[in-house]
């Protein structure tokens, strides 16, 4: 009788694979690809073991954020405001604003780098794309175009294929995955922490929590877990293949990565002389995707925390703070990305420092909220889970403080 009725099980499970997958894969953006490529080129496979640990941490953190969304139906900034008050909220939002602002700059740098791969000046492309992103989002045609950008990033699936075609020594790859090795060099540590920073970015947690909350009681905490875990694993498998692909080509050939064109050479075993084009397409798609979503998510989070009118369906008169912030972030990102005289690499490094610093703050807030019975009831973290999560937080915090100290020292 109930012919229409419930959707088939498999389809339902696929539907859960939403926010987690999107959030975690946002880590494979311009900054992410640059970092993974540099790691592969500089150290071969020797940091793969760290990626395994980072993946476990990412899965844990994403799961907590998703569970909070599913249980409370509230976004991160909403919970922070209600539980920690105005001062903590203001501090957290300010740091998030600056950290995400830096990320937005790096996305426009990515767009510019992709343009240069095609031989077009980034002075032309970056302002044009900034206008396009602003126009698409505020005019509401973004959703249709989003799929195009998402489709463009699919070319990064070329990495697993390229990795296999490069005939890496799989035995070494396997060994490096499970055997931790640490080198005490500044560059090694810097890349290590950059990898943590780019793989676990605070805005991923904001995104997954809001998106899961939006789905409401439809998502049980168990389903949120499936989503968060699979998202983390999937995106880091791609990251791993980027490292292997560059490790098997650039590292073996003792070549360093200075530009996007260098990084693209990791795809040569697959694409030959089209490697640059393939890489450029992917970089462009990933950067455009993030250049739209990041300003949107940032403005949304900040205005939500302070109770201003929000949403892209509002007019400037109705939601001046939200739309003003959104416009400002895109403008600033595009301008800083092409301003002559600004050291882009220094700026990107600074961005990662900021994200690394914000991360422990956000993680501690998430942990405190997720283990608070008043917020989470019976779904709060258990003692073992909490212990593992705290180890992660402390580990990340120590690493990012070390990174900060090193960065500051290197300025002298």
């Amino acid at each position: 009788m109930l012919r229409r009725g419930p959707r088939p099980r498999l389809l339902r499970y696929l539907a859960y694979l939403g926010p987690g997958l999107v959030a975690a894969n946002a880590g494979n953006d311009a900054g992410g690809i640059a970092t993974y490529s540099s790691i592969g080129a500089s150290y071969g496979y020797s940091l793969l073991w760290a990626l395994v640990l980072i993946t476990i941490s990412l899965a844990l953190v994403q799961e907590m954020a998703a569970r909070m969304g599913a249980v409370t139906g509230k976004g991160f900034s909403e919970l922070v405001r209600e539980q920690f008050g105005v001062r903590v909220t203001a501090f957290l939002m300010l740091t998030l604003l600056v950290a995400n602002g830096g990320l937005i700059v790096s996305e426009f740098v990515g767009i510019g780098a992709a343009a240069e791969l095609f031989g077009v000046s980034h002075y032309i492309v970056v302002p044009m794309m900034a206008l396009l992103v602003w126009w698409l989002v505020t005019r509401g045609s973004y959703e249709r175009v989003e799929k195009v950008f998402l489709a463009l990033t699919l070319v990064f699936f070329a990495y697993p294929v390229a990795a296999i075609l490069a005939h890496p020594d799989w035995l070494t790859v396997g060994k490096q995955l499970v055997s931790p090795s640490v080198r005490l060099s500044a560059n090694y540590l810097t890349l290590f922490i950059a990898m943590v920073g780019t793989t676990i970015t605070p805005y991923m947690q904001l995104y997954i929590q809001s998106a899961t909350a939006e789905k409401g009681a439809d998502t049980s905490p168990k389903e949120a877990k499936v989503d968060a875990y699979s998202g983390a694993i999937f995106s880091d498998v791609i990251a791993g293949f980027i490292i292997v692909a560059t490790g098997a080509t650039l590292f073996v050939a003792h070549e360093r990565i200075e530009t996007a064109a260098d990084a693209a050479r990791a795809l040569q075993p697959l694409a030959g002389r089209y490697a640059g084009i393939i890489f450029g397409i992917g970089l462009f798609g990933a950067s455009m995707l993030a250049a739209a979503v990041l300003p949107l998510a940032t403005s949304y989070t900040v205005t939500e925390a302070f109770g201003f009118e929000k949403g892209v369906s509002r007019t400037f008169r109705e939601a001046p703070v939200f739309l003003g912030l959104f416009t400002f972030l895109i403008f600033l990102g595009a301008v800083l990305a092409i301003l002559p005289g600004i050291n882009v690499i220094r700026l990107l490094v600074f961005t990662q420092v900021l994200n690394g610093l914000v991360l422990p703050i956000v993680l501690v807030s998430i942990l405190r909220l997720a283990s608070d019975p008043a917020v989470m009831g019976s779904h709060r973290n258990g003692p073992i889970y909490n212990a593992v999560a705290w180890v992660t937080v402390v580990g990340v915090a120590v690493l990012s403080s070390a990174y900060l100290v090193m960065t500051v020292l290197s300025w002298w």
Partner: protein
Amino acid sequence: MFFLSQVLGRPIRDMHGERIATVRDLIVRIDDKPYPTVTGLVARQGRRQFFIKASQISSLDESGAELSTTRLNLERFSRRENEVLLSKHVLDRQLIDVDGRRVIRVNDLQLAPSPSGYRVIAVDVSPHGLLRRLGVRRLGTPGPLLDWADVEYFASDAPAVRLKVSHERLSRLHPTDIARLVESVSYQKGAEILESLDVETAADAMEEVSDERQASLVGGMDEERAADIIERMAPDDAADLLADLDEEKQRDLLRLMEAEASLDVEELLAYPEDSAGGLMTPNYVPALPNMTVEQAIEHARALPYEPELVYYFYVVDSLEEEQPVLLGIASLRDMIFAGLSRRMDEVMTREFYHASSETSSDEVARVIGEYNLLALPVLSEDGRLLGIVTVDDVMERLLPVPWRQRLPRLFR
């Protein structure tokens, strides 16, 4: 008059002016009176917290609290029914601004003395309030405040307290506005709003809520109550809602619903969602060919259900049969101009457009739009009347989709 943020953390002095503790929080009673009265305060002395009754407070303002006694009853604080803590449960939380038809966040609260004690009189939602909380002192004149009598508090913000909050004032709003409020808060709060309204209003509002949200709202609601609401929704809307739930939930709700309503809905569930069968409602106005116009109207008045559309009378061969043969349709206009004593078979038109249960909803929309109809009958192959599709159910397909509704829900 003073603000809550100005009292918190201020000293509490006894009748000799000696500082004995600081103000930790204020306790108010929320009941059917328009303004909540302060029933006491939570004091903090070192690490200890204790309770001071309102009757012992002689004055309360920006400079702190002054007591009318030196004897302190150091009893531990325990909340009584209908009591909430202003700082813990109201500040930074969401309220409904009934007249503004929006959800707001509390930046600060204004209190004032009255003959019956101190009362909360207004809510500050302005940036002024935020800055005051952040410790910015010189602010000039505060922005306009919201009268507490015009806002509604969410009981779910004070869990563990048995709080009876009626959202009766919301019933004044249009169901579409209620639906918009329900969608702009977490699904638990949305469920709270719907549960507190009378069933009729709740059903009307639920019909206006987006499909994705409906499922999570029902998930957050008491099942009995959810069944009551679904029962009173138009059967076609109810079928759409139930179709989005999982099998178990669907069966439970159908079992809890009244037999008649659940049968109607179950029948509709058998048709695909975007066909005439999925859109139609069995609640039309039937009449017999030998009835006079007057008798037909009398009969319509006595129908056990509320017809969705009264403009068309469907003349059928039998009133007993579930699926009678449709002989003709009489519009109210025909009936009014024909006069009360004419027989229905003289008034009705035998030529009418109709759909079959498999007709696509786009086709139904096209016919309704092209021939300016208000409803289209759905007939089985042997000419039996299964139900009617009303124009409001295909309206969305007739209008160009406004861009606002195409946006991803998360940022709308």
